[in-house]
């Protein structure tokens, strides 16, 4: 029996089955280059006659044991896969600093100056509707939180600023937010801002309404 087998082996080698180390290289290259997991049959179809990819695969798997990539069985096929413990390398954290959108900063300003303030009130002040995303972002940043419900029909939710908000903007209390009059007196605010955005001139006598709003809020 063994002799017969030997004979057949000799015949096979005549048909140039490459040495197993060479076959291992072939399987290695095939699995590497293939866009999908490759079955033993598919490897066999590509490799020289008489090659035994299944055996080459055994050697290859052993070679890659504990390496940064491993030979893994996926479905019926085989493929290289990154070692599971190195998955963290494939991720990278990146911090991107972005300026708050105009809508977000305006909404935040209204909440800061008018708190507690309902969404309807914010919309009324801004003159445009406030998208859910804007408020969500402010909530997520923890600069704004939900306040008490207003004791009016519909009992709307109100928004107030948080301690994190005070931290971010270097304030001791929301009361420290300067009024428009003060801003202008301090030169922090000039008419240009308004002109830039609206293309019109600003009027100075808006302060009353503002102060009123503030009183309501902070006292």
């Amino acid at each position, binding site marked *: 029996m063994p002799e017969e087998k030997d004979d057949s082996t000799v015949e096979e080698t005549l048909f140039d089955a490459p040495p197993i180390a060479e076959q291992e290289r072939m399987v290695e290259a095939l699995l590497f280059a293939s866009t999908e997991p490759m079955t033993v049959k598919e490897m066999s179809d590509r490799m020289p006659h008489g090659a035994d990819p299944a055996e080459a695969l055994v050697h290859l798997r052993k070679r890659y044991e504990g390496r940064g990539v491993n030979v893994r069985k996926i479905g019926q096929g085989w493929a290289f896969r990154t070692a599971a413990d190195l998955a963290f390398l494939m991720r990278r954290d990146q911090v991107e600093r*972005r300026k*708050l959108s105009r809508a977000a900063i305006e909404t935040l300003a209204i909440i800061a100056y008018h708190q507690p303030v309902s969404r309807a009130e914010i919309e009324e*002040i801004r003159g445009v509707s406030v998208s859910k995303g804007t408020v969500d972002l402010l909530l997520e940043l923890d600069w704004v939180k939900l306040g008490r419900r207003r004791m009016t029909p519909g009992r709307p939710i109100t928004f107030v600023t948080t301690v994190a908000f005070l931290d971010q903007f270097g304030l001791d209390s929301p009361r420290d937010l300067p009024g428009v009059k003060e801003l202008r007196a301090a030169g922090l605010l000039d008419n240009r801002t308004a002109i830039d955005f609206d293309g019109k001139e600003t009027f100075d006598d808006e302060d009353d309404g503002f102060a009123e709003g503030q009183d309501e809020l902070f006292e």
Partner: protein
Amino acid sequence: MRDDKALEGAKIGRLSETPPTQDNLFTAPNADRTNPEALLIDVDGFEGPLDVLLTLARGQKVDLRRISILQLAEQYLAFVSAARKLRIELAADYLVMAAWLAYLKSRLLLPPPDTEDGPSAEELATNLAFQLERLEAMRTAAAQLMARDQLGREIFARGQEETMTVKTDIEWTASLSDLLNAYSRIKTRDYYQPLHMKRVPVYSLEDAVKRLREMVGVSVNWQVLASYIPSEWLSTPTKRKSALASHFSAMLELVKQGDAEIRQDDTFGPIELRAARTEAHA
């Protein structure tokens, strides 16, 4: 200079000859190419006069640095005149080259003038030889380059790219002055707020259906429709009309659904309704 596209398109007097392909381009010139007679009938295979000159130069079978420019000029001029005899229309740059070579040839043959402006004939000839050699060198280099093992042809990259994820944490920033500017912007804008239309109070149909269904469900006796209207909606004529209209529609809706019955004794008389009698009730 002509566009090489245009040149490729100019199929001039071309007899059946295999065009130069990538494979034979950079190998030794084939027999046809080296034979000036063959050149005559293969003009469109060339990429301009320099290409023709290079092919003719190869025919001299010497180092391009020792090429006889005089001989080359004569060969080229012969090529051009033969083409003319065959009424092959040559592109302008072939003729410009012919004129230049005729000039060079005359300068090479005549003794140099005592006062020579610019480069001598020898210098011009050397430069031409250099250009031919350089073109030849680039062609050889191109062939060597293309013969290299190429990615996607002999050498392969990883077939399955693994996703390299970049997790981006966004850090939102805003300064106090951003905040103050934003607020002042809003306060300034107050003066230019768009006109808001006041909404007329309307009793919605949905509300009326809901209300009627709840109330009719418990009343077995006939009741006037108007009595179902909430009292606060009777305060003004506008509100009353709106509430009445929606209750009327709601009533019809309930009847349609088989939840209520209605009756009206005379024209314009009060409409009454009650819950529908089920079999059991009857």
